[in-house]
């Protein structure tokens, strides 16, 4: 099977600080990468995606960086808020197949 993993299972940050969540992937043939946020008891919510021909993409308060050399993906959240507390996981996609990591739990300390 494929390996899509996260470096840290938990992350705690102070409200207002920036958060960085990391993800490693193993297949250089992946076409796109996606970040999801999952709050307790809810389904995963799409945050941002990036195609393999890009190395950076920005959204509202979020930035995704893709380093294909080391097969590394990161999600940066600016000015983290209590509402950002959730599990974040990455996914890689190839054709119609998606492979998901197990997630990092982000806790925002007020």
């Amino acid at each position, binding site marked *: 099977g494929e390996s899509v993993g996260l470096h840290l299972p938990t992350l705690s940050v102070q409200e207002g600080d920036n958060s960085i969540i990391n993800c490693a992937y193993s297949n250089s043939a992946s*076409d796109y990468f*996606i970040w999801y946020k999952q709050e307790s008891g809810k*389904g*995963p919510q*799409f945050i941002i*995606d990036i195609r393999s021909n890009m190395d950076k993409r920005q959204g509202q308060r979020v930035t995704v960086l893709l380093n294909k050399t080391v097969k590394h993906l990161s999600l940066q959240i600016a000015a983290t808020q209590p509402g950002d507390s959730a599990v974040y996981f990455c996914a890689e996609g190839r054709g119609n197949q998606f492979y998901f990591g*197990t997630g990092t739990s982000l806790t925002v300390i007020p």
Partner: protein
Amino acid sequence: DVKVTQSSRYLVKRTGEKVFLECVQDMDHENMFWYRQDPGLGLRLIYFSYDVKMKEKGDIPEGYSVSREKKERFSLILESASTNQTSMYLCASRAQGASTIYFGEGSWLTVV
């Protein structure tokens, strides 16, 4: 916004019962998926469907079947529920060729 609706959020079923989990999407997406999510294991694909009446096995199809009679609806069927099928089930949909899949809110199934 994409809307993927799973009609049952919480179910409790007995071992051996037949269970239906329904999913509807309103974006005319060709592809639909069923995953289960268990602690520490992430999302595992059960079945997916490219289009109406088409289905493909995922990584863990044993004990499950699916039905896609209409484009907007994808049903997951547990023919004879077992306790090891206690899990959270997530439906997702995607436009053909798109880079992102969208999830429903999940169905928590407990088999006793």
